[in-house]
């Protein structure tokens, strides 16, 4: 009973935090001056041809980015997660860095690499001119978003190749070499994870506004932004979001049966067993070279430009003078957000894993749906619901930002927890139940200790996403309580490049702090063991 009640409360909380604001926003769009009206939707229908072109361009960009991220991310994930490639941890951290930085910062950094005034332009002006021209448009958008989102594919591939039952691979190794085992056993088994990663990349690209705006590639989400920013028409803006929601729902509907029919094959029944590792042999160094060059060109180069731009003490002094309060706030918000995300995600993930209540499928779909919505949409939904005198204690305080984090990023802890629980044999919990142990005691003494390492990873991912959040924060942050990414964006207008670069470097360092702390801690833990 306590189990069902707790899980129902978690599901209800998620619905209030995530679904109710959207429902309020959509409901409001049907009313003009208190009277029912379809005017906003009629206007959208009337401009159908133009919308279709923009949507086509959005889908094209999303397909390009998804294709490239999958084709490059899966081999990199296998190399980093399954082989004895040297410096795997270092390379994984390096290749994951772009995910920690707001995409518009990466776009700006790449312009500093390719544009006029860069070292390329001084060495080869014609090449720089060509690259600079090509950068502004579809190719530039694809490149920037591909480097931003490819870590999603890499990380999920690493996580899932580690979850494949080693006995299956060992059996395969009896009749085939590793390439054959990978092709016929490992990759087909993790295909749902790859598909999930591809879907995430597709939907995140589809909702992206900052990079296409900066690189002048017209996409559909700009339409919703235009409605908000130029027309001050909330009903029209909400109506403009609907086609985006429809595409998102269609993609999720296509992904669902494939993912949920095959996911059971991934479950490792030998919890705690050794992972099998591919010995690269003579390919070790050449592959290290290829991965290193890839990391240096796609990640280190733009970051090096940022660091070079910020390389003066005065830039950092100015950055701290202008943004020390925002840095502190970002840290606190991210720590609180990540902790609550881990808690909420644990119960929602448990619900999805055990399918305790019939609503599990709805909760799973809702979290993914909220994640793929543009942050500004989630933010406007939150304003619609919470901006009332009675709820000022939430709307007028940082609590509104935390609610935004919970709504937008709940999918990460939920799905990660569900995967972590997949690797804990159910028999342990059932045995405790047979002994008459309460559910909370079972969680405390069996499930949580076994899932501890995974839950720490969940917390770190939550922390990273809360810290880099811009879409929700910029719309709802209380007066005087902006976060570091918001401060960077608002200072980008006429702020000096060295100041912006210094703030970006600070953001990256602050993001990496807990990752470094956990790496140190787990290293000590291992030595202690």
């Amino acid at each position, binding site marked *: 009973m306590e189990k069902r009640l707790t899980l129902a409360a978690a599901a209800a909380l998620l619905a209030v935090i995530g679904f109710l604001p959207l429902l309020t926003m959509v409901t409001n769009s049907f009313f003009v001056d208190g009277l029912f009206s379809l005017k906003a939707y009629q206007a959208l229908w009337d401009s159908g041809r133009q919308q279709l072109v923009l949507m086509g361009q959005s889908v094209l960009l999303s397909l390009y980015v998804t294709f490239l991220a999958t084709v490059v991310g899966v081999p990199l994930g296998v190399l980093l997660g399954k082989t004895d490639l040297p410096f795997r941890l270092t390379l994984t951290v390096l290749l994951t860095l772009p995910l920690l930085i707001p995409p518009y910062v990466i776009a700006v950094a790449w312009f500093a690499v390719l544009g006029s005034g860069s070292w390329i332009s001084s060495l080869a002006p014609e090449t720089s001119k060509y690259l600079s021209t090509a950068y502004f448009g579809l190719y530039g958008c694809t490149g920037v978003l591909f480097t931003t989102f490819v870590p999603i594919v890499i990380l999920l591939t690493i996580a899932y190749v580690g979850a494949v039952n080693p006995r299956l691979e060992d059996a395969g190794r009896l009749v085939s070499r590793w390439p054959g085992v990978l092709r016929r056993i490992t990759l087909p088994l993790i295909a749902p994870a790859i598909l999930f990663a591809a879907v995430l990349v597709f939907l995140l690209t589809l909702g992206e506004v900052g990079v296409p705006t900066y690189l002048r590639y017209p996409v559909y989400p700009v339409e919703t932004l235009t409605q908000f*920013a130029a027309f001050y028409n909330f009903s029209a803006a909400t109506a403009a979001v609907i086609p985006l929601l429809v595409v998102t729902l269609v993609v999720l509907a296509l992904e669902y049966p494939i993912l949920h029919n095959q996911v059971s094959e991934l479950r490792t029944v030998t919890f705690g067993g050794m992972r099998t590792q591919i010995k690269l042999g003579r390919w070790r160094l050449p592959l290290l070279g290829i991965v290193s060059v890839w990391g240096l060109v796609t990640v280190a180069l733009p970051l090096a430009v940022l660091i070079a731009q910020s390389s003066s003490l005065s830039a950092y002094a100015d950055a701290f003078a202008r943004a020390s309060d925002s840095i502190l706030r970002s840290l606190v918000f991210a720590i609180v957000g990540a902790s609550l995300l881990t808690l909420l995600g644990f119960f929602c993930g448990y619900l999805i894993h055990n399918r305790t209540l019939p609503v599990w499928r709805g909760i799973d779909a809702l979290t993914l749906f909220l994640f793929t919505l543009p942050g*500004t949409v989630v933010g406007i939904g939150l304003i619609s619901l919470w*901006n*009332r*005198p009675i709820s000022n204690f939430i709307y007028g*305080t940082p609590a509104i930002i935390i609610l935004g984090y919970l709504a937008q990023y709940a999918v990460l802890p939920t799905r990660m927890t569900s995967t972590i629980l997949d690797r804990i044999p159910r028999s342990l919990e059932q045995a405790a139940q047979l002994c008459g142990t309460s559910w909370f005691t079972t969680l405390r003494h069996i499930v949580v200790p076994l899932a501890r390492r995974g839950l720490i990873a969940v917390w770190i991912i939550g922390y990273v996403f809360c810290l880099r959040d811009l879409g929700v924060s910029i719309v709802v*942050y209380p007066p005087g309580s902006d976060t570091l990414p918001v401060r960077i964006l608002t200072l980008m207008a006429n702020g000096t490049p060295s100041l912006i670069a210094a703030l970006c470097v600070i953001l990256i360092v602050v993001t990496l702090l807990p990752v470094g702390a956990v790496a140190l801690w787990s290293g000590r833990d291992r030595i202690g063991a």
Partner: protein
Amino acid sequence: MKKTLWISLVLLAGAAIAVWYFKSFPRAPTVVVYVSHDQVFSEPILKDFEKDTGISVRAVYDTEETKSAGAMNRLIAERNNPQADVYWANEPIRAEVLRQQHIAAPYVSPNAAGIPAIFRDPDGYWTGFAARARVLIVHSDINPRPTSVLSYTDPRWRGRTVIANPLFGTTTDQIAALFVLWGDDHGRTFMQDLHDSGVKISPSNGDSADLVARGAFAFGLVDSDDVVNRIKQHQPIDIVYPDQGVDEIGCFIVPNAAVLIAGAPHPEAGKKLIDYLLSKDTERKLALSNAAQIPLHSGVTSPAELRPIESMKVMSVNYAEVAAKLQAIQPFLKKWVGGG
């Protein structure tokens, strides 16, 4: 022992967060201001206000470049439960929209007296200060120079001009002003000619200025502060004040605007902030900083790179009419940008 230590640490952290959370509630005296002027330039002014008056400022910043659903949209979304006391708009049209939507409250500041009437709402719903001029940024190699906004439609410049997206910011304001001055038919013809001239649409005025400075285009219509910034960077560009001839329409001026919000939680502190923003001292600071805003009070030093307001032929236009026209022509502009 270890467990007790952990629990103590968690409790301590929780207590610290709780204290910080409750400290984040507004404390008197406080003023809440939503700002559309660039944070780099507006924040020092607000800090000075805090220092001079002892009133704590809590700000929400927005930027024209981001075009995000920022300060203005928050004001509209919060109309039934206002959080802001003052809106510092970076152009008067947004202020007018707030007046029309009953979000602004009237307040005639004593410091508004020295500001020309054209830059003020007659009922005090908004008051202009520290302005930008809409000027042509021209690449130094270009000769002869364009002299008017009508130069955009001169066949000589076909495919060599750039303009910021007319759906946003000061470019929208200027197009709406031209519609007001010329009438709808003439305005639409101009826009059609502009479209046929192969003008390049850039995301912002800053981008237009950069494209001209790089030599990608001959000229573009931008804000005066965009030109001043490039001049300070020694880029190969010049400034042209358009339409300065006897029979010409003059240069469109875009002042900042201070607005008191209807139902503001701290109206008295809000009025003090508006007084401060409209003072000669604030105009002087905004003129001498990199914001390079042109003072509207007479006798205040202008930025060295720009003409003072008195020595410019200013476009004579009613900003309330411009705001109304802007909303009326938005569907047309949307189609125009979409190529329709």
